[in-house]
């Protein structure tokens, strides 16, 4: 019984965290978002060198062959510095699909280039969480027609992995589709609307009449978004505590007032157990497959709720300054808001948790 990170995982956490703290300060996030960049090549190259881009990809395909807990630690580190780089779609969800449902040829063609950072794969499956009337992709022979919304990392990707209305998975070239950037609150990551019109597509053979791979992608993606929120909320809490120790009013630092101290304690008390939930959910994906869906749903929903609480309270601890652009707290606030809605808002995901345990 050892519910803790291993030495290797702690080292990974330290190397990725250390790199991002120096390579991705708030100023560089501001710079990137001001010119509309959601995948900064320099930061991405550094991460790829540390193995992040190929974290799940086996060594023989150019990756480092680690597991979902390691991937979650990277996602947390990215969230904590609100890094403007693609990760969840290209380095987690797409490799899950290719490794599970791709042909040998497809894996060898794509995964080494994903691991090196040469290629980014965006993921468009939001219609399988909840489909609006005007959306959805339909297959006809070797082509796809229709519209996918909220394609994750979609504007930066060279290749797109999409699902048709029967959850079969395909690769299409980004240059073959009409792509529109969707402006969201979070300017550190991209989501796109893509329109396909008899676009040629390459099916992942393992996904034919098999929903499993789509479900695996969704589970992995949800755990990564939960970890991203964990990181972002952790930074907001740290900043609130630091501010409460420095800011003086009535001749005292404000952290000595119980009203402020208790806000910090409540945030810490709610957030700390979330770390264990994310670890468990990430571990369960491979080690306890029977629980994978249930735990991914709970991690996603519970982190969304706790993240929102921390985002709001940490801003409040900063008083009027928290509301300004000067401190930049809003970048974390918005990242947490983005994570919450993507791949299923809490109510939707909890309902899936009810199904996963046979309640309904």
């Amino acid at each position, binding site marked *: *019984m*050892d*519910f*803790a*990170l*291993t030495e290797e*995982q702690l080292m990974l956490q330290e190397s990725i965290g250390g790199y991002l703290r120096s390579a991705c300060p708030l100023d560089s996030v501001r710079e990137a978002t001001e010119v509309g960049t959601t995948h900064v090549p320099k930061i991405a190259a550094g991460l790829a060198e540390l193995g992040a881009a190929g974290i799940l990809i086996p060594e023989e395909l150019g990756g480092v062959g680690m597991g979902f*807990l390691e991937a979650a630690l990277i996602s947390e580190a990215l969230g904590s510095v609100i890094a403007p780089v693609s990760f969840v779609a290209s380095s987690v969800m797409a490799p899950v699909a290719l490794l599970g449902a791709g042909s040998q040829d497809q894996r060898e063609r794509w995964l080494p280039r994903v691991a090196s950072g040469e290629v980014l794969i965006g993921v468009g499956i939001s219609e399988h969480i909840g489909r609006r009337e005007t959306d959805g992709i339909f297959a006809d022979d070797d082509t796809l027609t229709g519209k996918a919304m909220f394609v994750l990392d979609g504007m930066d990707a060279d290749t797109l992995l999409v699902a048709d209305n029967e959850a079969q998975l395909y690769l299409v070239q980004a240059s073959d589709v009409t792509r529109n950037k969707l402006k969201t609150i979070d300017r550190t990551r991209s989501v796109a609307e893509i329109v396909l019109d008899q676009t040629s597509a390459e099916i992942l053979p393992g996904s034919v009449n098999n929903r499993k791979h789509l479900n695996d992608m969704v589970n992995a993606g949800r755990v990564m978004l939960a970890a991203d929120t964990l990181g972002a909320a952790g930074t907001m809490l740290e900043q609130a*505590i630091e501010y*409460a*120790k420095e800011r003086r009013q009535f001749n*005292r*630092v404000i*952290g*000595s*007032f*119980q009203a402020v*101290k*208790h806000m*910090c*304690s*409540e945030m*810490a*008390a*709610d957030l*700390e*157990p*979330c*770390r*264990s*939930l994310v*670890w*468990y959910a990430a*571990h369960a994906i491979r*080690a*306890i497959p029977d629980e994978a869906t249930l*735990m991914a749903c*709970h991690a996603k*929903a*519970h982190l969304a*709720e706790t993240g929102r609480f921390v985002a709001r309270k940490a801003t409040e601890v900063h008083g009027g300054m928290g509301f300004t652009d000067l401190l930049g707290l809003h970048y974390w606030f918005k990242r947490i808001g983005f994570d919450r809605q993507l791949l299923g808002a*809490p*109510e939707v995901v*909890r*309902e899936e*948790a*009810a199904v996963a345990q046979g*309640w*309904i």
Partner: protein
Amino acid sequence: MDLAYSPEYEQYRMEVRQFLDANRDQSPPPYGRGNGDGKARDWQKLLIENGYAARTIPKEYGGFGGEPDILKSHIIAQEFASAGVRPGHSGDNRLVPTVLELGTEDQKQWLVPPTVRGDMIWCQGYSEPGSGSDLASLSTRAIVDGDDFVINGQKIWTSGAQHADMIFCLVRTEPDAPKHQGISYLVFSMDTPGIEVRPLVTMTGEATFNEVFFTDVRVPKHQIIGNRGEGWFVANNTLKHEREGLGDPNQAENRFREIVDLMQRETMDSNRLIDNPTYRDRLLSLQGRMLAMKFNGMRVLTSQIKEEEPGLPRWIIKLQGCELNHQMAAMAIDSMGELGILYDDGPYLRDQGRWQQRYMMDLGLIIGGGTAQIQKNMIGERALGLPKEPKFEKPLN
């Protein structure tokens, strides 16, 4: 991350299970205090002999004398809980560790063996009407007269005082010293002349607490644990042991299963309660919180096995665990609609009316053992490093 138990511990778990299968018919009812009839005493004796109770208390003081092994203790607790069999006890989990750590040899021989056997039942005399969260301001006085302390004053919230044989009690022996340095920790019989116990009926309708009045109660001077004026230090040792027992994640998980069972069993308008999407969503939110606390508990357990200080994950257990239990009781009551208000007894009562009882008791637990507000102060100051509130000391007399 390795959630499997090593073969050694799997073997140990099998041994505990075999023991429970073979002996469960000898166990007393699952709840209760003290030995009552001899059955509880015999059960405790059997458990100690097998290392399932008083496991780490040395043999010479009536325990099993095993090496500390948190994982074994954890396995014992889990297996007894899932078998629904009354676990053993280590005497009193607040007093015994304190006496073993800070008592004299004579005190250990006098107090620990009968307590471990279950023949000596304790109550805790800490809180006073004027000293709740600010416990160190307590004013029950003990003055030296010959070979005795003479105690006058009053305690409150004294759980189980009406059944207790003994009390461990904080009294002010050095009125001129700063408040934390003027307190001593005394132990004495509840049969001592001058003690009056008045039951304090709570909102649940039961008298689980008492007021205890002391009028010229004479206690021999040697019945002090630690030195005069060091009682605050001794008491903090006790409180540490008490808090760890509150907000236990295993309890939350068991309670959650009971609610799911209730909501799958009960119907309203021909639908199961769990089929109501509003209630179901609330239930699922609680499940998320419960799981987070369960895994947080596993993380703390791992730290303890490695003899590392768990830090923040442990500081939050009491605050979060008690609140979660309270919210779960509220959920069960709400889902039952009007049936939720039934109480005491009656043909329509569900689950023996324990959800209302728990809903109220949990509020008591949120307040007792350090209120939620005091917990938040401790988390803020000790775990997050925020500064203390400036203090305005008032004179003690």
